[in-house]
């Protein structure tokens, strides 16, 4: 039995086994921590125990005296190299190693390089840091108080005190028409408002972040194996930060053990590993532990929202307006297109036809780790989808209307596409009512409501202490950043390159810039080429994850791989196909215009037996055949794909829960997910992506607490405290699909990696709140742990972002 003999692979789209699995099931993956170089040393980071403190002194002498220690690096060392601070992806600065103050618990203070990883950790204990503790800003809603401690006193505009900006204030950002929206609200028959928290969560990929840096003093070349979702962007940033010439930097992202946005940013540990290698002349490996991962790397969300919805009494939704306090932590390090400091949050109008909408987002500093855009959020579409789907449910509650009926009445209709939203998006395509109806059919919605009514009756008669909840959500995703005119990260336009070469024997090599973290790119991108050229996927090698071997591109996050690099792959394959046509015309001695394509060969119109296969053409293109004027030999092409618009996948989700209000325990009984991501390249992989996102929804909605105490201590810094969903909390997922191709994508695909993470939390929360309806509960914030549910049932909901008082 082998991994390759089971199941015939389609020559193109369809279900096929993943090519990458052969190594993973044998334990032969090659992750960063598997890289082992001769003479390699190991690094470890000393971190701050305080959320906010002045660094008075750092004594490294005892650590330096440790027999296995090769170097101790502090902020002072780095300052000498002008590397103590580095730019973030949001045009702020971030300390690599603290010099003046520490600003969150777990912040990097010093870096030890030693002969082995245990010795490096030992030496951390020998570093003596004197701190002067300062009061911390923990509650984002108090960050702008006049008496709030100043976090970023390193920033000039604060020192001057004349900018008019509050010291913990980062930005204000608005979208939509405020005046028009206020008019709609002023004249509306019904207005409902709710404070809604999308709490801080962490993506927690199973593999933590790490790097192996190897600087060759002779050639001046730096090779960096790194857990990066965006190797090309990282290379450019290193060139800008460290002043190393870009052609002397090679970033290799080998196998990545899950990313989910956690591996987009550049972390101090990576920079320290590089400096460590330069200083010691040896390769240096640094791999963070789980607590370091949870405490210091990109968290997600932390949006404190006030949402309002306006409607008519009979349930026509007219407008939505939102005010947000966005907790960005101690450094503004969010990773999103530059012009969108709140990401794509302004897609909060969701899937509905509204007269007007407006949002205002205020970013603030707090004494917590930096981040905010991560965890499969599609640049904050998670927060937007959750907000609108929660508040639509609250409207249904207020109107005493079934939430499915309210949604069905207000969903955009197929004939309204392309649809211009009140906040500036143009949704490409969709058939929303069809997807919702399919989800309701799969769920047996009417029967569920009947069962719920009977159960409520028993509950109210005191015959049964349990309640049943049914929650819906309908989401519209916005993915595939993006058109380079509007979207860049640190000035790098978000277009992706692709290179395709067909060898003389008809085997092909595709080189792409995006970086799989489990999405199966080696398989699906081969399938795209197969679909376009008729070369079997097993004859196509997909090269990625190495900046020396692949064209430039912005990487994999925001579900952008298929919308951008998938499109680039289709386009470059079509270029090769057109070159093949010219070669075939020379081979067949006919005019190119007289040739027709069918998968895998060019044939003469009206005479299908007169044909050349792509393999024959490849050989001829490398051979002695005399080619037409202006046609170069060989069979290859390059492209850079600049997407004309985002793509807008969507879906309808229904969650059924059993709740025990006496204990607060929630059991997810069923979850139905209908997704429309346009054309599916490999349906098996699409379904796998959805499954994972649905589990995220269970975790975020019910389990994953990342709270802070008044001193800024992180209360979720291990997997014993930050609970991930296991096989026991996850139900069997019931999937459905509709297919509405994107009209502007070459193969009609839309991207799906984050859809379920975006769509599922609202369905779970709506189900729990629906269950608690007999107790008068209108809203409670995630995560709905037993404590949070119980407190909501008691009428005193928790602030889930703060330690329980």
């Amino acid at each position, binding site marked *: 039995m082998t*991994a390759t003999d089971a199941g015939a692979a389609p020559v193109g789209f369809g279900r096929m086994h993943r090519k990458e699995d052969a190594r993973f099931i044998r334990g032969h*993956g090659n*992750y960063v921590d598997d890289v082992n170089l001769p003479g390699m040393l190991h690094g470890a980071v000393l971190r701050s125990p305080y959320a906010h403190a002045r660094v008075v002194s750092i004594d490294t002498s005892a650590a330096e005296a440790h027999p296995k220690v090769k170097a101790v690096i502090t902020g002072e060392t780095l300052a000498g190299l002008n590397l103590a601070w580095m730019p973030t992806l949001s045009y702020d600065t971030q300390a690599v190693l603290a010099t003046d103050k520490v600003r969150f618990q777990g912040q990097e203070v010093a870096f030890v390089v030693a002969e082995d990883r245990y010795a490096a950790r030992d030496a951390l204990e020998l570093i003596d840091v004197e701190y002067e503790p300062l009061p911390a800003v923990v509650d984002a809603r108090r960050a702008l108080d006049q008496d709030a401690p100043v976090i970023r006193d390193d920033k000039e505009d604060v020192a001057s005190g004349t900018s008019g900006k509050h010291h913990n204030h980062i930005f204000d950002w608005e979208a939509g028409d405020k005046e028009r929206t206020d008019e709609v609200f002023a004249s509306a028959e019904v207005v409902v408002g709710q404070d809604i928290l999308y709490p801080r969560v962490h993506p927690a990929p199973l*593999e933590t972040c790490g790097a192996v840096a190897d600087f060759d003093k002779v050639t001046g070349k730096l090779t960096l194996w790194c857990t990066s979702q965006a190797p090309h962007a990282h290379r450019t940033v290193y060139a800008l930060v460290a002043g190393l010439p870009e052609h002397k930097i090679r970033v290799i992202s080998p196998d990545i*053990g899950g990313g989910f946005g956690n591996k987009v940013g550049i972390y101090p540990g990576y920079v320290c590993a590089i400096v460590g290698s330069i200083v010691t002349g040896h390769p240096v490996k640094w791999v963070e532990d789980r607590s370091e991962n949870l405490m210091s790397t990109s968290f997600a969300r932390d949006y404190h929202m006030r949402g309002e919805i306006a409607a008519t009494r009979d349930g026509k939704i007219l407008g939505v307006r939102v005010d947000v306090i966005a907790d960005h932590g101690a450094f503004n390090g969010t990773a999103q297109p530059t012009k969108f400091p709140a990401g794509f949050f302004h897609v909060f109008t969701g899937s509905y036809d509204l007269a007007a909408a407006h949002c205002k987002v205020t970013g603030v500093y707090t004494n917590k780790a930096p981040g905010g855009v991560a965890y499969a959020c599609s640049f904050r579409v998670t927060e937007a989808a959750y907000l609108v789907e929660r508040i639509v449910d609250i409207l249904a509650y207020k109107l005493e209307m079934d939430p499915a009926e309210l949604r069905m009445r207000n969903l955009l209709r197929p004939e309204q596409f392309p649809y211009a939203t009140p906040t500036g998006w143009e949704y490409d395509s969709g058939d929303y009512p069809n997807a919702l109806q399919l989800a309701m059919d799969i769920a047996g919605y009417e029967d569920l409501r009947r069962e719920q009514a009977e159960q409520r009756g028993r509950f109210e008669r005191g015959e049964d202490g349990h309640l049943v909840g049914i929650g819906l959500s309908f989401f519209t995703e916005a993915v595939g950043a993006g058109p380079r005119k509007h979207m860049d990260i640190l000035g790098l336009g978000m277009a992706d390159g692709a290179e395709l070469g067909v060898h003389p024997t008809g085997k092909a090599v595709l080189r792409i810039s995006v970086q799989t973290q489990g999405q199966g790119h080696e398989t699906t991108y081969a399938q795209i080429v197969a679909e376009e050229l008729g070369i079997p996927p097993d004859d196509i090698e997909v090269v990625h994850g190495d900046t020396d071997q692949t064209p430039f591109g912005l990487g994999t996050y925001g579900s952008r791989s298929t919308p951008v690099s998938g499109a680039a792959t289709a386009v470059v394959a079509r270029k090769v196909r057109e070159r093949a046509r010219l070669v075939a015309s020379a081979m067949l001695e006919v005019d190119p215009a007289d040739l027709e394509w069918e998968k895998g060969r060019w044939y003469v119109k009206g005479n299908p037996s007169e044909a050349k296969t792509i393999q024959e053409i490849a050989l001829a293109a490398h051979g002695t055949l005399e080619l037409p004027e202006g046609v170069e030999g060989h069979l290859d092409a390059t492209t850079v794909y600049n997407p004309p618009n985002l793509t807008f996948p969507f879906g309808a989700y229904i969650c059924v829960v059993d709740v025990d209000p006496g204990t607060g325990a929630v059991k997810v009984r069923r979850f139905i997910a209908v997704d429309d991501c346009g054309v599916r390249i490999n349906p098996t992989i699409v379904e796998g992506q959805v499954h994972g996102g649905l589990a995220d929804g269970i975790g975020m909605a019910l389990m994953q607490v990342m709270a802070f105490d008044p001193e800024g201590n992180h209360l979720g810094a291990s997997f014993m405290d930050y609970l991930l969903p296991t096989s026991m909390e996850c139900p069997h997922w019931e999937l459905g699909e509709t297919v509405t191709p994107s009209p502007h994508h070459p193969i009609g695909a839309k991207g799906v990696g984050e859809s379920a993470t975006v769509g599922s939390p609202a369905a779970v929360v709506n189900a729990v709140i629906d269950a608690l309806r007999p107790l008068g509960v209108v809203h409670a914030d995630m995560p709905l742990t037993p404590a949070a549910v119980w407190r909501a049932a008691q009428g005193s909901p928790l602030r889930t972002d703060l330690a329980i008082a």
Partner: protein
Amino acid sequence: MPSITVSVNGQEYAGEVEARLLLVHYLRDHLGLTGTHWGCDTSNCGTCVVWLDGVPVKSCTVLAVMADGHTVDTVEGLERNGELDPVQQGFVECHGLQCGFCTPGMLMTARWLLNHNPDPSEHEIREAISGQSCRCTGYENIVRSVRWAAEHGGKEAAGPESGLEAEEVPA
């Protein structure tokens, strides 16, 4: 430093280790068996699961010296004579992995489960892997993969010298 002798995947390894060295680091850094991963330090994630004397353990909370004189089986030992174990094939057939990081631990637990319960129900599979995290698959296809293995030769005790009590392990 203590000297230890450990049989890993049927091969004996002897050497000196620090008394505090974790088994996961011994396997990865000393023996180069990097198929076993490390993920959390707290015995929660299970990506480090190997067998110690035929029983799944989380090798991040076992000291290498505790394996002295004992038998360890890792994911690298599942394939035998070029033949994949049915659980390995099941994960390929049913898309039971994405990033692959949890996979070795899942495979070792799945193999152990099938040796002790050749025809497990969905619930029994979920219970068996409940001490292990997967961040990609939502577990659905892992459950299917184990079922596939049960239905395709998984009932035969394939894989490592499986499920034997310590005293029964061949020398």
